[in-house]
Each structure stands twice: as C-alpha cells, then as structure tokens.
C-alpha cells in the first residue's frame, strides 16, 4: 500500500517534469549493477539520444538489493531490463509486464568445465560435480535431461571461487561476466571446455526491455521512443568502444562495483556478440518466436510456469 502511494507520487512528479521541460521523465532500472551489460542505455543517456527522443531518462542503480517487481509495480521504475525467462516467471506470478524489446539474442549462460576433469563435450558431464545458480537452473537441468546425464548438481553462489578452488568440475557462468572473471583469476582458455546452451537447442535470449502492460497501453508512443532511443544507444556503444568504456567505468565507479577496464571491455565485446550474433540476426530488439517458444516450453516443462502467454500480447514493442 505504501509502495502504491509512492508510485502515485512519483508518477505525478514525472508528469510535472514533462510539463516543465517539454521532456517526459521516465526511469529505467537495469536488473544488475552498472556494467557494460547495460552499455546501450548509459550511452543513450550520456549521448543525449533519450533527450532527442523527448525523454528525460533516469537510470536507477540496479543490483542484488533491488526489487525489480516492486519497483515496476510502484512506478519507481517505468522500464526495467530483465532476462526473458525471469520476466515470464514474473508474469506467471501476476506481474502484468510486457516485452518491449528483446535486446540479447543469444544466451550468454554457459557451463565452464575443466578439461582436467576429462570434460571435452556435454556427455562428459555425466557423474561430474556441476554447480548451477538456482535462479538460472532451467537451462542446465534441461540440458542434463536432454542428454540424459546423471550430474551431481551443487548449488552455486555469487562467486567463481568454488570452481576456482576445484570444488566442482564445471560451473555456470555468464559469458560476458563470470567466464572472464575466471580468466582473470588465472584460468587459461585452453584449460576449459565451454558449453553454450544455444548450441544445444536451449537458446534462452536474456536481456530485454520491459514495462507494465498498462504503461504500454496508455503511452505506446512514449514506449516506442524509449525503445528506439535505447537501441540507438546500443548501436552507438558498439561503434564507440573507448567512449563507452569511459562512461561505463564512471557509472561503475559511482556505484563502487569494484570492476576494472579490461573486464568491462570484455563484457562490452561479448554483449555485441550476444546482441548482434553474426548469423541470422533479426532486427535489433526483436524477440524471435522460436526463442520465445523454446523458453516457454522449457519453463513449463520444468514447472516454472503453467500458462504460456500469447506471443503477440507479450512481445509488443517490435511489431510497432
């Protein structure tokens, strides 16, 4: 109830701001800490792309302590970024959100397995200790089912250390994040086998832009401008690596995330691989029906969701 009231007040503030400057104030809450994973939005803001689209965007600082659902419900965040599977779960749980744009096309989640443990391909995971994140367990479990592997699943925390200390034979990682942290903790690329889910029929596109169904219905034009500017921000970020890095590092510094330039450079480059994969890239921001179907099918079969939303009702941005 309190949150709802706070939402109303911030909404009215937004309206006031719009009337004052001719720009519409909106807020974006990325689902994680400031890093190159969100470079496009920071660059759209920094380079005035949002303003030139009539938007006064405030990017809130995301992170483990932020509650995306609450922020969206309260109106604290007009827009959020989220993983497709996570968004579908939220929608299943009653949060009426819609996908405005599917930014990431290729699943960045992967398994990093030690070649020293004899793992050269997926089948070698049988009988091995594999750590997985409970929040992102659907893909690995589906993979194990698909290959009929009896895997010793170990819960994975927020760090790479269990894997680095040899506590498990394989660990989950984001290609753009944990994998590089491993490399920069003394792991050599030739020591590991990488298992990408998209190569095993389990491509879960991740980062997308979301807002409440109501926001979309009430202000479709605003939403479209936001999508357009955000995607333009991504294009800018990829073509201006050094400038983007400087911006990202500044935001990271402000949020005291304790990252470094080489890690953000790696992340930005991987985001480009994920957002603009070389083969069969759909127009930027598009959610492919087959990817949507894959995610829904796997979520449903793992019992995460019971109802599959109508694609067109869920992914609204790109068709307009």
């Amino acid at each position, binding site marked *: 109830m309190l949150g709802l009231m706070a939402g109303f007040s911030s909404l009215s503030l937004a309206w006031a701001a719009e009337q004052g400057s001719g720009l519409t104030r909106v807020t974006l809450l990325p689902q994680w800490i400031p890093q190159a994973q969100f470079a496009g939005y920071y660059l759209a803001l920094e380079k005035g792309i949002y303003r030139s689209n009539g938007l006064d965007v405030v990017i809130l600082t995301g992170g483990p302590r932020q509650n995306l659902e609450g922020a969206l419900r309260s109106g604290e965040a007009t827009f959020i970024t989220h993983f497709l599977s996570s968004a579908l779960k939220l929608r299943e749980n009653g949060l009426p959100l819609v996908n405005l744009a599917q930014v990431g096309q290729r699943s960045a989640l992967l398994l990093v397995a030690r070649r020293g443990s004899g793992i050269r391909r997926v089948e070698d995971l049988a009988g091995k*200790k594999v750590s997985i994140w*409970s929040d992102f367990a659907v893909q690995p479990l589906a993979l194990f089912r698909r290959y009929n592997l009896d895997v010793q699943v*170990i*819960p*994975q*925390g*927020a*760090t*790479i*250390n*269990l894997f*680095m*200390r*040899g*506590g*498990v034979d394989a660990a989950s990682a984001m290609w753009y994040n944990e994998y590089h942290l491993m*490399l*920069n*903790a*003394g792991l*050599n690329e030739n020591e590991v086998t990488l298992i990408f889910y998209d190569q095993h029929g389990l491509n879960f596109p991740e980062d997308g832009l979301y807002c409440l169904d109501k926001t979309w219905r009430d202000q479709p034009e605003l939403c479209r401008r936001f999508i357009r500017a955000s995607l333009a921000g991504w294009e800018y970020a990829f073509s201006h690596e050094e400038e983007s890095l400087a911006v990202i590092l500044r935001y990271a510094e402000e949020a005291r995330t*304790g*990252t*470094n*330039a*080489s*890690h953000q*450079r*790696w992340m930005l480059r991987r985001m480009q691989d994920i957002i603009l994969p070389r083969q069969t890239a759909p127009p930027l921001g598009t959610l492919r029906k087959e990817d949507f179907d894959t995610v829904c099918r796997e979520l449903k079969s793992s019992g995460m969701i019971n109802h599959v939303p109508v694609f067109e009702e869920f992914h609204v941005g790109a068709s307009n």
Partner: protein
Amino acid sequence: MSERRTKSFHPTLAFKLGLLVLASTGLVFFVAFAYNNHVARRLMLKNVEEATQRLAQSTVARISSLLQGVERTPIFIAQQLSRPVKDTNQIVQVLRDILLSNPHIHSAAIAFEPGKFSPGLESFAPLVYRQNNQWQYRDLAQGLYNYSVQDWYLIPKQLDRPLWSEPYFDDGGANAMMCAFSVPFYRTHENRSEFCGVVSVALQLEHIVEQVSTLSLYRSGYVYLMSQNGQLISHPNLSWVFKESIFSVAEQDGNDQLRRIGLAMVRGQEGLERFQSIFTRRMSWMYYAPVASIGWSVGIVFPEEEILADLRALNRDVLWIGTIGFGLLFCVVVLLSRGVTRPISSLARQTHEIARGNLDVPLPPIRTHDEVEELSRSFENMRVALKEYIANLADTTAAKERIESELKIARNIQRSFLPKHFPPFPDKTGFDLFADLQPAKQVGGDLYDFFLLDQHRLFFSIGDVSDKGVPAALLMAVTKTLMKGVAEQDLSPSEVLGKVNTELALDNETMMFVTLFCGILDFRTGELVYSNAGHLPPLWIRNHCEVSWLELPKGMVLGAMEDSTYETRSIRLQPGDTLVLYTDGVTEAMNAQEALYGEERLLSLIELRGDDSPRSLVENVFRSVHEYAEGTPQSDDITVLVLHFSPELTPRPRSGSARTPCS
C-alpha cells in the same frame, strides 16, 4: 714531386703512436670494464635476490604467523563440535571467546547444516560480530541471506577441509576488507562421518595490508599482495586494490609476461623475474613467493636502475677516470713520442732542404744516443760527402767546359788554316777544284792545301796525321805551314816532302807521323808532277768514265825517319781529266757491323759519278760514306779533294749536267 704536400690530413708519427697506444689500452680497458660490469651486475642481482628472498620470507612468515593465530581457535572449536551441543547460549559464548582471543577477528560464526543443530531447527547459523566496541549477535539463518551458498560455507563443505576464502569487502557494517577462515566439522553417525557445518571467522585484513604496504625496498621498490585469484589486496596503486587482478592488469596492458608471472604466483610458485613494471613503467625485477596457508602470493618489485644505481655510479666514475686517464695517457704518449720523433722531424725538414739541393745547411747535432743520432750522423756525413762530390763535379765540369771551348777555338783555328773559298782562284782558267774536311772529333789530323806557285802552276796536297785530336791538329798545322813554306821555294814534290820530313823527324819524340800526297799541276799543259809519303793513291778519271788508281812511287811517311827520300813522278793530264784525293777516313769508314767502306765501293761510286763537278763529287762521296755508316759515329777525319783539269774552260759552272754521263 714528393715535395708537394696534399691538402688532406696527414697525422704525425706521434699522433699515430698515441692513437695506437690509446686504442689498444682502450680495448683492454673496455674489455675489463665490460667483464667487471657483467660480473658485478650478476653479483648485485644475486645479493638483491637473496635480500628480497629474505624480505619475502620474513613477510610470508609474519603473515603466516598472524594467520595461524587466527586459524588455531576455529580448528579447536570444530573439533569440539564433533560432539553435539544443544545450548545456544553456550555456542554464543564460544563465539565471543573466539573474538576475545584475537583482536583482528571481526566476527565468528558457526553455521550448521540444516537439521544438524537440533532436529526441529531447519537452519541455524549464529554469528557474533564486533560493532562499536560491543558484541552483536545475529542468526544468519534468519532473513534472506542464504548462507549455504556463500563461499565461506559452501567451499569448505565441498572441499572437506579448512579454507581461507577469497578476500571480500564487507559493506554490511564493518566496511572493511575481510577474509574468512572456515573449518568444516563432522559428526559420526552410524559409523559414518557426516558434515554438520562450518566454523568460520572473519579476519580484518587492514592489519596485514598495513604491514605489507609499509614495507619498502630501495627508493621506489614496493611489496604487493595478491589473493589466490590474483586479486590485488595490497598495492601502492590504491586504485587497483580490490578492483584489478594481476591478470586484468596484464590484459589491459596486453602484457603476456605479466600474465605468465601471475599464473606462476597463483600456482604457489616462487621466482625472480625481470619485467617492465606496468605501475612504474620502469624495467624492474620481481621476486614472488607464496603465502601457503592462505593461497596468497607476495610480490616484491624493485626497479632495476635502483638496484644497479650503485653499480651505475661506480661505472660512471670508472668511465670518467678512464676517460681522463686516457686523455692524460694520450698526452703523455704524444709528448714522449714527440721527444722521440722531434729529431726525426727536424731531420726530415733538414733532409728536405738537402733534397731540394741545399747542401749548405748543416744538420742540427742530435744527442739522443740512439738510432736517431746515428741516422742523423749518417745523413750529415752523406751531406758533406755529397757537397764535396758536387764541388768536385763542378770543378771538373768547369775544366771540361774550358777544354771544350779551347778545343772549339783550336778547331776554328785549324779550319782557318784550310782554304775554304771555292772556286779558290776565280780569275784562273784551266782547272776546277773543290775540297772539304769533316773532322771526327773537334780537331782532326787530316789536312789539305793548294796554292798557286806562279801564273801557271798549282800546288796541291792532302795528308793525314797518324793520331787524332789536338796533338794531331798541331802536327797538321806544323806540316801544312812547313809544306807551304818549302813548296814556295820552287822545289819538286819529292824535294818538298824530303825537306818537310827532315823538319818533322827532327826531335820527333812523340813518334807521330804524317802521310801525305802532293802534286804540282801546270794547268796550261796538263803536266802533273807528284810525290807521295805513304798516302793512299788518288783516283784518276780519264775520258769522263775511265777510273784508275794513280801509280804512286814508294815513300815513307813524313816524320818517321830523318833521312827518308822521295821520288817525283810525272804524268800528263788530258783536258777533262779529274783527280780524286782522299784520306783513309773514307775507305775505313765503318757501318754498324764494323765493316769497312772499302776502296771498291769508292771506285764504283766514282765510276758512276765521274762526270760530276768537283763539288758535287765531294758531296756525293760524303753522302755515300754517311749513308753507309748508318749513324755510326765517325771514327776518323774524312777529307776529299777533287781536281778537274780543263784548260779550255773558264771556271766551271757549279753543276756538271752540261756533260753527258758515262755509260
């Protein structure tokens, strides 16, 4: 030619000597210097390696003892927990005791596996921590914090051994760098050891970091500390601490060597490596050693230039000393060698004068008592000898020139004795006469003469003195004078020869003699009377082409014997007849093969040219002899006299072409 100096630089002997000495000592010096530098550098690096090794070991020992102090209590507690503890208060008391035992421990927790504390309790993880100098207690199982997936719990559980965690920044309240030491504990259940939980203490790293960061080495050397993941825990570049790992720094710099060093470090190796420090951007050395219990690594970095600063300073001094020394050495060598070469140089200058012909400059006395003095003395002797020789030469040359000039005069005088005007008697008709003498040396021994005894008679003679040169010329002059004087007494040719012989033979100590032919021609009648004193027979040309030797009476050469007698013969020349008189210079002329010209050759020539005028005949004989000699120097005087009798004619034209040649 050699006197002309070229403009290019010609170093002196002293300079060359100096340079050579300098170059060779310089070479020795630099080889010694380089070797010294190499060895000293190696020694210094070895010392530095030992020093840094000691520093690393002491640092590692200090950290390790601190860590051991922390480790001891939770290990003990974990052992105690192998027996069930049911009392929560007792556990909290134990945790407080842990904090009491070590002021650097910030918090302590005992986290139980779900259901292991008491069957009814799902999870239990009591935590005691310091806050504002007070104990605070919290159950980590309460709230959203899922301790079961935290590193400090999960990793020792999975690895089944006590373990230090990666350092982390606790922003929950302590706002400090921490590192957790966690010990798993087990209980025996149905003869099986069963994991029941973890005892964990969090150590504030501030103290360790402080200790390490105050360590320094040389002027700008530094010590850094990195975790098992390569994360920088302590580093003089504070902006890297907890942000960068050695690998991210290496990646950002594109530095493969640093990544390699990082890998060795996280693998617990020890080593010394030369590398370009990314922090200081200077060539540096890094010694690294592991802190085994916690998996960390200590790196000690020291700039090479500072290690080797003393050596460099020493090298600089040595080089300075060397340079100055070389300068001095060069000067000394140049001075010394100048001392040696100065006499040589002055000798060179003086002999230069001598070479130019000035022998009057005496060589300076050199008292070096060595080869140079000897050389100088030899040169002086040579100069004096040369001067003497040249003086003698000048005298001799002067004498020779004087003699030659006198001989020239003598020749002129001698030549002036001989009648040289042709035709000799332009107002006389009845004969034509031409004669010439070509001397072998400047004064010769041949003679000829002719003069009118009266209006109708011509006296003529030709002779040859036995020797050549001045004595012969003198005798020739005497003979000619005597001949003329005696002949004018209107005597017959034999009487003339007899009288002249008597005069010449008188007191003839030189034993020189003269051959002579003389005759008197009555050029109205052609009556010729003649006598001979050992001379060659003249050729008689009759009827233009008939040539024969004139029959001669016997007669001794003049001047050989006092009482020699001579005979006069007489013949009558027909108009047109010609007599050719000559000396042995003609018939005994030699060619290059030393073959004689010969009488036959002369006879043939005269037969061919019998119709020529006397002048032409004389010239032809000379030309023929010269052609025969082919440039061989003339060894004797050559004299030819031609007399042509032609009473009906006035003096003959110069050319004889009016007459028909002999067939």
